[in-house]
Every structure is written in structure tokens, then in C-alpha cells.
């Protein structure tokens, strides 16, 4: 609790647009939107100093539902767009939001390099282990025996992608997993993720109640991780090796690698000057 003098000027609602979300009732993405807006209010960030960038998918609709700057981009390309934005406008707080399909299939390569590059971004992935928007196909994080899609009637038979392991190995500077069933904890972790310099990865277990109705059980399956974060990547990796994907609610890893922040020579910002710099 803070003193009255430090009372915050923004409410969570100030970060919502007038557009009404069209997600299915009960979808975890509603909770993620609420946790993001709560986090921004707690950080008291003026809306004009924040941008949310996304790709395509149900989860990628978040920028439309916020009042901050938004870019609803091309499928799988949220991270390169956000990287460019942050480098051009380092004064902005840049969040990237999207799904497991957007981030780890079509955008998988960008994910690796965004972690490696360590630009100061906060990447919030709503992982529902399915392509929700295109009506329920297996995604990279789907378990091999899920038979819910007619495209993979006997399951994919392929080991799921491990976002946190890959993120850690690729250089992400902050790693956490949260559950959509605990919006207040999620808001707290998003605040920490935004505050931490460099590339922050937050995996949200966000049920798709329509194409994965069994994910409603996640609420009862998840458990609060027992150990606090480490700054030792090897130790974090060992923890992830014995992790079943349902330890949530705490930061797993906070690194100290300095963010990638190239200094550009002062320019007048004109296109002609840019062309001159890149002329062969």
C-alpha cells in the first residue's frame, strides 16, 4: 500500500478502447486483456507512451481492445514489427501479444531471434495449445495425442514445442508462466515483466473454451510454483526440465544481459538521409 501522495492517476478502464471484444464467453483472453490493463494502470503509464503489437489469431485481437497505440499486423510477424518500433521509439513501452500458433509456428523463427536480440519488449503469449481463430487445429504446443481436430484425428504424434525452454536457451531475459484463472497474479507478473529490461517472455495458460473445452480444468490443475526466480540460466533450465507445464504464478528467470539498444547517429529523420545511409 502506498501513501495518498503516490495515488495513481490511471484506472484499468482508461486503457480499454470502446470496441467490444468478440471472443467466446469464458475465453481466457478476456482475462489477459484485463490483467494487461490493470498492469498498465499500476505502472501509471500514459496511454500515449505505450504500444501493443500483435499478429493474427483470437489472442492477437488485443490491440484493438486497448486505447494505447496498437498494430494488428501480419500472422507471425508481431515480434519483428515490435522490434522495429522499439528501436525507432525507445521511449515507448512496447508489449507484444499473440497466440501459440502466431508465435511458435509461423512466427517461430522470429521468436528465437527476438529472444536472442534481447530488445526491451514484453511478449505475452496466450497459449491455448490450438489455433482458435481458424476453428481448432493443432498448434506447436498441442500434446501429441490430442484427437480433437479432423486434420489430426489420431493426434499429431509430435512432441510439443517448449516455449520457456526454447526462450531461455535463445536468450530471453525474463521468463514466467501464469494462468488466466488468476488475473491478479497475472497483472503482478506483467508489471514485473515490463519493468525488467530486455526481452521478457510471459506464457499465459489461456483456455480456448470452444475448441479445447477440456482446458476449463486447467483452473484446478495449475499450482503455484514453489521456488522463486533465479538469475542463473542453468538452474532455470534444470527446473524447466522437470516441469509439467502447470507450475504458474512466479517468475522463473530474471537475467542481467543488457538489452540490445543500438545508438544511431543523430539524423534529421528525413527519408533522403536514410537513403543516403543505405546507398550502395
Amino acid at each position, binding site marked *: 500500500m502506498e501513501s495518498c501522495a503516490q495515488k495513481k492517476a490511471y484506472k484499468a478502464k482508461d486503457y480499454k478502447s470502446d470496441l467490444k*471484444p468478440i471472443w467466446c464467453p469464458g*475465453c481466457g483472453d478476456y482475462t489477459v486483456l484485463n490483467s494487461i490493463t490493470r498492469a498498465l494502470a499500476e505502472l501509471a503509464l500514459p496511454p500515449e507512451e505505450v504500444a501493443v503489437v500483435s499478429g493474427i489469431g483470437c489472442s492477437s485481437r488485443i490491440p484493438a481492445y486497448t486505447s494505447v497505440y496498437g498494430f494488428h499486423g501480419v500472422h507471425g510477424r508481431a515480434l519483428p514489427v515490435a522490434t522495429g518500433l522499439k528501436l525507432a521509439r525507445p521511449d515507448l513501452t512496447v508489449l507484444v501479444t499473440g497466440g501459440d500458433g502466431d508465435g511458435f509456428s509461423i512466427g517461430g523463427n522470429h521468436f528465437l531471434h527476438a529472444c536472442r536480440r534481447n530488445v526491451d519488449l514484453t511478449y505475452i503469449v496466450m497459449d491455448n495449445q490450438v489455433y482458435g481463430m481458424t476453428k*481448432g487445429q493443432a498448434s506447436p504446443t498441442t500434446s501429441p495425442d490430442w484427437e480433437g481436430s479432423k486434420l489430426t484425428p489420431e493426434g499429431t504424434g509430435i512432441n510439443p514445442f517448449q516455449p520457456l525452454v526454447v526462450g531461455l536457451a535463445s536468450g530471453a531475459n525474463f521468463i514466467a508462466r501464469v494462468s488466466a484463472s488468476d488475473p491478479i497474479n497475472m497483472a503482478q507478473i506483467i508489471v514485473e515483466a515490463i519493468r525488467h529490461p530486455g526481452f521478457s517472455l510471459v506464457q499465459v495458460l489461456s483456455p480456448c473454451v470452444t475448441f479445447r473445452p477440456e482446458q476449463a480444468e486447467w483452473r484446478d490443475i495449475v499450482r503455484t510454483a514453489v521456488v522463486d526466480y533465479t538469475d542463473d540460466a542453468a538452474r532455470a533450465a534444470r527446473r524447466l526440465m522437470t516441469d509439467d507445464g502447470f507450475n504458474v504464478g512466479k517468475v522463473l528467470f530474471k537475467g542481467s544481459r543488457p538489452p540490445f539498444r543500438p545508438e544511431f547517429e543523430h539524423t534529421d529523420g528525413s527519408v533522403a538521409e536514410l537513403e543516403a545511409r543505405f546507398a550502395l
Partner: protein
Amino acid sequence: MSDTQANTAIDSLPELLAHALAMETEAAERYEELADQMETHRKAGVAAIFRRLEKEEKAHLVELNEMCSRYELPHYAPWDFKWATGESPEAIAIDQVSYKLSVRGAVELALVHERRACDFYAGIAQRASDDEVRILASQFAAEEREHIGWLESCLADCGPDDGAIDDPDPPLSQE
């Protein structure tokens, strides 16, 4: 202490008002969110229940805001409020609803949460040592009882079902 009462004592007027303001704001916004969701999904009957509750909460908020403007309220981070529950007790968790929710199911869900809100204030009234806090918390609990009364009468008018309707047109996975 019941699981819906404050997890530590609230014993000053500014503390009580800060909690009441957060709880009523969240309840109003959540009812609005749920009414919007249900309208988007052509669930007019269920939407009407949530819309009516949104209006009630907003009317209550006008008075509450007026009262709060006379005090310096402490700031709480969302995770510092003294709720025994994760979100504030009156806010229906998003994952409790579905497009299959019936009118009866919506009324029952709202009843649970209005009772939680009432318990929260009643618990403060019971335990506070400050007279002003006790009186105001009792008044807030009585206001919640009005919502409970309205919902109970709605429930009496609802036909029997198990809170969810059958889906004649379930989601089809794309081939």
C-alpha cells in the same frame, strides 16, 4: 472467518472506502463486460440480467464516488487489497461463464457473488473496532442485500434447468 471475508482487518474509513470503491467498480465493469459478451452472442435474456446488475452497481458507484471524494484514500496495487479471494469478491470470474449459460445459471452465478460482497462487508462490520467503519460497512452490506433480494425473486421466476442450455449447433472443428 469465511472464505469471502477480508483476510485481515479493515479498521479505518479510508481503507473501507478504498476497498468498496475497488469492489463496486470491478463489479460494475464485470457485469458490463458479461452483458456485452452475451449480447454479442445473441443471448438477450442472460445479457438483460447482467445489464440490470451493471446499472445497479453504477448507480451505487455514483454515491460511493461522492462519498470517497471527501477523503484521501490510500492507493492499493491490485494484489494488495485484502480480499480473501483473488479478484474482488463481487466480480464474477470470466471463466465461470459460457455461451451455454442459461438465465437461471446467470442469476445463480450473480447470487453467489452478491452474497460474497454482502459477507465481505458484514465481516468488516462485525470485526471493526471503529464505530464509523462498523456503521458504514453495515450500510454497504444492506445495499448488497437489496441485490440479493432482487436476484432471489428472479430465481423464483426462472424455470428449472441445470444452469446451462443444450447447444443445438456445437462448434465444428474446421477440416
